[in-house]
Structures are given as structure tokens and as C-alpha cells.
């Protein structure tokens, strides 16, 4: 089993998904929990192996690469797989009560099947070393995500899912076109093989076209401004547990794809010196940080507010990548992990509010600090991280990001990072003010959310403080991952 762990990481959830669809709702939850906890165990075991033995290359079905499909696991992608598995493992206990409340019983089992498929797809994108395999897993995760979003209570969830489907499919088709153009020039689909063969044909005009298609397709998937239009509605109207899971994993995996294609497949010389990618990504990510934080300030629905803040936070990650330096990519990868923790915690806190209050509009949250002290404290904890207060993970990300900006001598960009934090303070404060400094509506009774929802929320909040105080683990893994990506294949 140890030898086949890279394949089992993906195959076990894939096989459990139809099982979940066939059994009842309660049993389906148990199957989903087994899938999530298995993938967490497998990805941690793989991380230990990668740290001890270096990059793992697994030949799917015994067919040797570059002809067979290769699963290639190094520090960068196992780190992403762990983020996905960790968020999945924490979301699933949370989902039991939250989903039972928000989704009708007869759809419960199918929901968990879609959840497992989404997890499978995201893990698959992370560990595969074959570019066409990336597309297949991308579609598995996206299609299941669309159907989960459509299960939201509000009828606007349907239109949100439909628009996500249209835009997501266009993005995926762009990625396929890019892959096809690379294939026609090199005759290979293996990432490591592409990295060797692409420089030989880099003068041909097809390669920049392939690069452009891939960049547009992936930035659509990761919701970089101005291709973020699908995201706010999808996050707002999806069931709470789905928002918490997708917000902290789907866009992160797309950011990883961006890193993989820019640095491993095309190489940073081509991406940053020939194509001058930083000239596109840096302005866009700066606009994303400033404009989307500003839009977030004016939202009356807190889930929508957090969704716009997510687009801004993706701006930070892409900003880190656009520096093209080891320090910048490290900042991007650290923020990937940190943002997954804090946004997961924040959306889960909103799920608790949704469970008890039935709405997440700001005016409905008056006085919640007194009636739901644990939920709102978790929200404040996650919010502090979003702002970037010292001793939280948000501070660690911003510290690296500002350092990376100053290393390149771009002090105005460092200023933008700080202004973004200031704006985050404003929109978090808006919620805190209503929740703590207004008196609750005496007409109806609100209770604290159940323990099975509070504990997962607090696990993420606690993690966001733990990794904020002791960042040595995340920082060392992220730095090594960045070095593997930029240094090419070991």
C-alpha cells in the first residue's frame, strides 16, 4: 500500500463517491467523512515521504512516463493537497448539521457524493504530473462544485451556479486549447517532459499563444480580477458548508496550477522575461486588492462581503507570484495556506449564524456578540487574521509579501498591501460594530450554534493563531516549495 499511496490518495475518494450516492443521508455522511479523513492521512504520510526521500514519481498502471500518466509529488503540490484534505476533514463534521438544515433530506446523500467528487478532483489536480489529467480532474471538481452551489436555499443559487458553469467551462476549454497547442508542438503531455521540450520550440509563435490561452483559462478559474464575476454570487448563495470548503480550496488549487504552469512547465525565464507576465499580473492584482476591498466595504450581506474580500485576497497571492522571485512565490504559497485557514473559519462562522439566525445580512446580526458569543468570537479571530494583526497568520503572509516587494524595490506596492489591510479592518469592523455594540432584537430567540459546528470553526481559528505565532513550519515548507518551483525539476 505504501508504494501505491499517491494513486490511492485520489482513487479511494473516487470509489467512495458512488457508494455515498447509493446509501442513505446519514450513512453518506459517514462515507464522506471516511473519504476526507483518509485523504488527510494519505497526504500527511506523503508529505513525510517527500521530506525524507525527495520527489516521488508514481507510474499510473505501470506505464512509464512520458507515455503513461505520471503522478509527480514534490513539496509544492503535496502542500496544496494537504490544504485541500485538511479543509475537507474539518468541513465534514461541520457539514452534518449545517447541511441537514439547509438541504432537504432526499438530496443529502447526493450532496455528499458531489462533495467527495469535488475533493477527488481537487486532490487529483494537485498530485498529477500530466497536463491533460489536470483538465479531467479540473472538470470533475468544477462540475461537482456547480451542482453543490445549485443546492443553496435561495433561488439565486441556481443562477449563480449557471453563470459559474458557463464561465468555468469557458475557462476549462481555454486550458484545453492551451494544452493542445503545447501537445502539437512537443508531442508530449507530461509536465516534466514538456519542461524539457518547450524551450527547443519556444521561438515558434504557437507557444506564446498556448501560454496565453492557459493564463486566461487558469486566471478565470482562480477568479483574478476582472475574471472574478462568477465568484461573489456563487459564494453568497451556496450552502454554508460548501462555501467554506470551496472558498478555501478551489481557488487555491487554481493558484497552484498557475505556479505549476508558469514555473515548472514554461520556466520562469520564458514566463517573466519573454512573455513579461509580471506586467499583466501585477497591475491586475493591485486593482483586485484595492477595488474588491472597496466593494466589500459596501456589502450588506456578510457572505457576499467575504466573497469580495476573497477576490482581494487572491490578488495578494497573485501579487506574490508576479514578483517572480523566490521570496515572492514563498509569500504567495504561504498566503495560499493562511488564507484557506482564515477564510474557512470566517465562512464557517457565517454558516453558524445562518444556522441560528437564518440570514447573514448585517442588520440581522445586531447584538449577536451577546447571544452567540463563541461564533462571533471566531468571526473576530478570523477577521483579525484577514486584517493582518501580528500573532495571526495574516500578519505572516503580509510580512513576506512586503519583504518581497521591498526586495524588488517596489515600495508603492508594499504600500498597496498595507492599504488593503486597512480596508479589511473597515469591513470587518462594520460587522463587529453591529454584532457587539447594538442590542439584540428581543422579539425572537437566538441560540448559540451546535457544538459540532463550533468545534471545526474553532479548530481553524486556533490554527490561524498557532501558525501566526509559530510560522517556522509553514515558512520552511513554503520556501522549499518555492525553491523547487523556481529551481526547475530536481
Amino acid at each position, binding site marked *: 500500500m505504501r508504494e501505491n499511496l499517491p494513486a490511492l490518495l485520489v482513487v479511494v475518494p473516487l470509489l467512495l463517491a458512488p457508494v455515498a450516492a447509493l446509501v442513505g443521508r446519514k450513512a453518506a455522511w459517514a462515507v464522506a467523512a471516511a473519504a476526507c479523513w483518509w485523504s488527510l492521512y494519505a497526504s500527511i504520510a506523503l508529505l513525510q515521504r517527500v521530506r525524507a526521500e525527495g520527489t516521488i514519481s508514481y507510474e499510473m498502471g505501470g506505464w512509464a512516463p512520458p507515455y503513461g500518466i505520471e503522478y509527480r509529488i514534490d513539496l509544492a503540490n503535496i502542500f496544496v493537497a494537504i490544504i485541500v484534505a485538511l479543509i475537507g476533514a474539518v468541513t465534514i463534521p461541520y457539514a452534518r448539521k449545517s447541511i441537514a438544515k439547509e438541504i432537504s433530506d432526499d438530496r443529502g446523500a447526493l450532496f455528499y457524493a458531489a462533495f467527495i467528487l469535488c475533493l477527488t478532483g481537487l486532490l487529483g489536480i494537485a498530485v498529477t504530473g500530466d497536463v491533460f489529467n489536470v483538465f479531467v480532474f479540473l472538470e470533475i471538481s468544477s462540475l461537482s462544485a456547480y451542482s453543490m452551489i445549485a443546492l443553496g436555499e435561495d433561488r439565486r443559487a441556481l443562477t449563480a451556479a449557471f453563470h459559474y458553469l*458557463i464561465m468555468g*467551462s469557458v475557462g476549462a476549454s481555454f486550458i484545453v486549447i492551451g494544452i493542445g497547442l503545447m501537445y502539437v508542438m512537443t508531442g508530449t503531455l507530461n509536465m516534466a517532459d514538456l519542461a524539457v521540450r518547450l524551450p527547443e520550440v519556444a521561438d515558434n509563435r504557437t507557444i506564446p499563444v498556448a501560454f496565453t490561452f492557459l493564463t486566461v483559462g487558469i486566471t478565470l478559474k482562480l477568479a483574478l480580477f476582472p475574471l472574478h464575476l462568477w465568484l461573489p454570487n456563487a459564494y453568497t448563495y451556496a450552502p454554508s458548508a460548501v462555501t467554506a470548503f470551496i472558498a478555501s480550496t478551489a481557488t487555491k488549487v487554481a493558484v497552484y496550477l498557475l505556479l505549476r504552469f508558469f514555473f515548472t512547465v514554461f520556466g520562469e525565464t520564458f514566463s517573466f522575461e519573454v512573455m513579461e507576465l509580471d506586467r499583466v499580473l501585477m497591475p491586475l492584482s493591485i486593482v483586485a486588492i484595492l477595488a474588491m476591498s472597496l466593494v466589500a466595504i459596501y456589502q450588506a450581506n456578510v457572505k457576499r462581503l467575504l466573497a469580495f474580500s476573497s477576490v482581494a485576497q487572491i490578488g495578494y497571492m497573485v501579487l506574490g507570484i508576479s514578483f517572480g522571485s523566490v521570496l515572492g512565490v514563498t509569500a504567495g504559497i504561504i498566503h495560499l495556506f493562511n488564507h484557506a485557514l482564515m477564510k474557512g473559519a470566517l465562512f464557517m462562522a457565517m454558516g453558524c449564524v445562518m444556522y441560528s439566525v437564518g440570514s447573514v445580512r448585517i442588520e440581522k446580526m445586531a447584538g449577536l456578540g451577546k447571544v452567540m458569543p463563541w461564533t462571533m468570537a471566531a468571526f473576530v479571530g478570523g477577521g483579525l487574521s484577514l486584517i493582518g494583526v501580528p500573532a495571526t497568520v495574516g500578519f505572516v503572509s503580509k510580512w513576506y509579501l512586503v519583504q518581497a516587494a521591498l526586495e524588488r524595490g517596489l515600495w508603492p506596492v508594499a504600500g498597496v498591501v498595507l492599504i488593503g489591510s486597512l480596508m479589511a479592518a473597515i469591513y470587518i469592523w462594520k460587522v463587529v460594530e453591529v454584532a457587539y455594540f447594538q442590542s439584540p432584537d428581543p422579539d425572537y430567540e437566538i441560540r448559540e450554534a451546535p457544538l459540532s459546528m463550533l468545534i471545526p470553526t474553532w479548530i481553524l481559528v486556533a490554527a490561524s493563531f498557532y501558525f501566526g505565532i509559530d510560522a517556522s513550519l509553514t515558512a520552511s515548507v513554503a520556501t522549499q516549495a518555492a525553491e523547487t518551483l523556481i529551481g526547475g525539476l530536481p
Partner: protein
Amino acid sequence: MTALGLFNYWAVIVLMMVGFYTLIARGNLVKKLIGLNIFQTAVIMMYVSFGKVTGGTAPILVEGEAAEGVLYSNPIPHVLMLTAIVVGVATLALGLSLVVRIKEAYGTIEEDEMRDGGL
């Protein structure tokens, strides 16, 4: 290679743009899905054109003495597109089922009317 020799690729570009335009410009959700499907079909045609080797025959192994010097077309793009077709069917099925539920919830599948209906 004359412009006519690249006929496949011209067709791909035209189809792709037709699909993309329909996707953007139409307010009817079913028409949007049709546009998306034309777009995906163009991608499939592009891949299949990649697989053609000049003078190559169908990639079925020829046995015996006749096997000497047989030139095959590349089967891999075809195989990849089988997967892409399955993905396209799944996307279309999901999209259409969403449209059915949108019709139930809003009473219309026109984007303008949905917006007037109090979004």
C-alpha cells in the same frame, strides 16, 4: 500549405467565434448552453485535426508483411477528445438541468426577465 489546406483550422476558428459570441450575446439560457457546446465542439475539431498525419492511415495496427512502412495517424488526440466529449456531455446535462430548475423557480429562462423579476 495554402490557406485552403488549413481549411480545418479556419472552420475551428469560425465555429469557436460563433459559439463564443452566442454565449456572450444571447440572453436565453438554453441558447447560451448551445453556444458553449459549439465552442467545445470547435476544440474537439481542433484536436482531431492535430492528429492527422499527411498520408497516414487509420491507427489500427496492420499485421503481417503489409506492416512494412505503414504510416499511421496519431491516435492520442482522438483518445483525449473522447474524454473531452464525455466532459462536454456532462456539462451540458448539468447545465440543462439547472435551466429546468431556473424555469421552475423564476418562471422564465430569459436573463432580462429574470432580472426584472426581482433579483
